[in-house]
């Protein structure tokens, strides 16, 4: 139990995938200027991350390892991700059109989110078991969601700020993210 808690705290706060490990930055910078869409994006990403962590574990353990094809991890995992994303899309579309309306637009973006592939690769290189892999996947998603949602609320606030012209838009978003990652350094050493 404690181990699980440690995995979660570590992946959400201390080694936050966005602010500390630099994974998944493009969607982080790109879509998060509206709180509502940030929440949708977060939910979709967390779901896909957890699912790919599981699926790529299976592919890794049951296909790649026995065949001695570790070097094919990248290509195999990216296929897994594409398939999972597509599956998720289909599944949601069919079972809950309401949810699909909320999440639908975000799903394709997730394929190109390198946090997803990053987590799969990291898990594979760390020799985790199935439970741990899934938890890392979920933790990565939760950490991504946390900063994405807070960040979007903050960007909404910045909409009215009197920012010097060259810094408007992406530049100030970068700087804000920098200050956020500064704050996250406070978590170092927690576990």
């Amino acid at each position, binding site marked *: 139990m404690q181990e699980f808690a440690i995995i979660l705290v570590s992946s959400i706060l201390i080694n936050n995938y966005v602010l500390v490990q630099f994974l998944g930055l493009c969607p982080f910078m790109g879509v998060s200027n509206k709180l509502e869409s940030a929440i949708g994006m977060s939910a979709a990403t967390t779901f896909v991350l957890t699912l790919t962590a599981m699926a790529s574990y299976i592919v890794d353990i049951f296909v790649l390892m026995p065949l001695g094809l570790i*070097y*094919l991890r990248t*290509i195999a995992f990216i296929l897994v991700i594409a398939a999972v994303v597509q599956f998720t899309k289909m599944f949601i579309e069919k079972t809950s059109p309401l949810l699909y309306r909320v999440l639908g637009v975000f799903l394709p973006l997730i394929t190109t989110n390198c946090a997803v592939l990053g987590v799969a690769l990291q898990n594979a290189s760390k020799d985790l078991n199935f439970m741990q892999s899934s938890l890392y996947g979920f933790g990565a998603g939760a950490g991504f969601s946390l900063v994405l949602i807070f960040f979007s609320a903050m960007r909404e606030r910045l909409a009215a700020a009197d920012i010097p012209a060259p810094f408007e838009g992406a530049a100030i978003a970068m700087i804000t993210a920098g200050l956020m990652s500064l704050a996250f350094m406070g978590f*170092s*050493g927690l576990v």
Partner: protein
Amino acid sequence: MILQSIRFNAIVLAVFALITAIILASTDSLTRDKIAESERKAAQRKLLEIIPIERHDNDLLMDVQPIPKRFWAQLGLKSGGDIHIARRDGLPIAAIIPAITPDGYSGSIAMIVGINFDGTIAGVRVTEHRETPGLGDKVDLKKSDWILDFDDKSLVNPERDGWDVKKNGGTYDQFTGATITPRAVIHQIAETLEYFSQDSERLLAQAAENLDKIIESSDE
């Protein structure tokens, strides 16, 4: 209609997969040896820093002995580890022992300690740590030479009490603004020396036994 689409798309993807598989597999087989070589070199490098190539003539990576479980706690190891033996002309001259101290400022610090079979230190390197950059990270040779202070020291030089930072009455320097990291490292090195003094005979015996095997395998 559906079936047709499935078949067409599947074939296209399969063709892709085929071509990539060929390309990748050939790249892999072309680079495989080179990669193994690089990996070996990298793994050797740390060991070689401690026992330079002039001092030994065996393959450090191959000459290994597992650490008995009863010593794990003393060395701070959670899941065991291997000791590398350096030899010259078949004679063991030094052992390279992995150790971990849990008492670093931010978590544990992993190191390898090379000890000559006469009980003096051949060299110490910190292999993994999360100490504060600028403060505790001076235990890393990249940042400071402090770790070289241990060369040639032993359990009698200094005495056991001297194995501490100056602040606590020992003989080793602490860093400005950071005492915890060096203290943890010093204590663990001393512990490792203690371990070695208890276990060196068994290591020697085992090394002699291994010699035959190694000769055999290298003959092949």
